[in-house]
């Protein structure tokens, strides 16, 4: 590392630069990772809310009566496939194959859009059946947690569309690769949170 400093600057390395110092590279990926960790706290507090309030149905529908497990299975499959296809896009990016990468990104985006669509359909169905977020503490915490996740996915899709336009126009520049790496982390992170949602909110929820 000290050798590269000599190469680029053409002067002797500064004396205070010791080996323990972190590398002075662009810290975007680390910063984005720390953002994701802070996002973990948002979801952790919402999970805690649901854990506490999940059985307070105020005489309204309980989790076992209102939650649709077959629909959940389809949704979970869509999001997992979307995560994997995004990974394929990252592999094509590493091989500098722009068209294949854009195609995989489009597939990942469509799968995620299908996920959001099905979720909105389920929400609509629940609200029509009188199980809206205003019905009970259980439903308030349910809609807040699942809705926050759905909002994250929707924003991710928006980000993906903007980035695909950028990639199409400017190609695989260094900045675009960095942005795509951040979005990739965001995408996989949301699938990870969904594991908690379907296990804790839905599957464990209907049994409580």
């Amino acid at each position, binding site marked *: 590392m000290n050798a590269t400093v000599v190469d680029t600057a053409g002067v002797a390395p500064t004396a205070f630069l010791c080996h323990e110092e972190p590398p002075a590279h662009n810290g975007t990926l*680390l910063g984005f990772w720390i953002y994701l960790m802070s996002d973990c706290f948002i979801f952790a507090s919402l999970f805690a809310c649901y854990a506490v309030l999940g059985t307070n149905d105020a005489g309204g529908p309980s989790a076992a009566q209102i939650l649709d497990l077959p629909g959940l299975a389809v949704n979970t499959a869509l999001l997992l496939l979307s995560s994997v296809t995004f990974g394929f896009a990252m592999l094509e990016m590493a091989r500098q194959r722009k068209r294949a990468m854009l195609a995989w990104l489009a597939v990942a985006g469509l799968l995620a859009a299908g996920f959001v669509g099905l979720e909105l359909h389920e929400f609509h169905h629940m609200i029509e059946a009188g199980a809206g977020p205003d019905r009970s503490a259980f439903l308030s915490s349910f809609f807040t947690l699942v809705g926050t996740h759905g909002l994250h996915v929707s924003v991710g899709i928006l980000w993906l569309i903007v980035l695909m336009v950028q990639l199409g126009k400017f190609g695989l520049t260094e900045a675009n690769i960095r942005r795509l790496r951040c979005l990739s982390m965001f995408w996989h992170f949301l699938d990870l949170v969904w594991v908690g949602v379907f296990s804790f909110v839905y599957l464990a929820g209907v049994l*409580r």
Partner: protein
Amino acid sequence: MSHPTASGHGDDALHVHQGSLRGYLTGFVLAAILTAIPFWLVMGHVFDNRWLTITLVLLLAVVQILVHIVYFLHLDTHSEGGWNMMAFIFTIVLVVIVLGASIWVMYNENSLMMPMSPQYQHSEG
């Protein structure tokens, strides 16, 4: 990104994990299996004891989250010079405290509220 970046640092200092087709497919198969088992446990009514089922579902969720972190997020002790792992461990500790303590405290609160006399039952919840 095998060429040196503009700042003069190569990939060695950054250690950007690209992932591989094999890694993504392994992660996908493991995740699919770890998803299918809890669905089967709950929808197939495999065990009569519901707390056993809930415990198994949550344990499988923890395993699946680890699979996602390793195979999809490529977290290891080298990424970003180890800082990703440090931030992750710090987050896990705090999340466990937030979740565990909230559930513990509120569960005790609920049990201390019980039992209610019948004339107040309608206002419960």
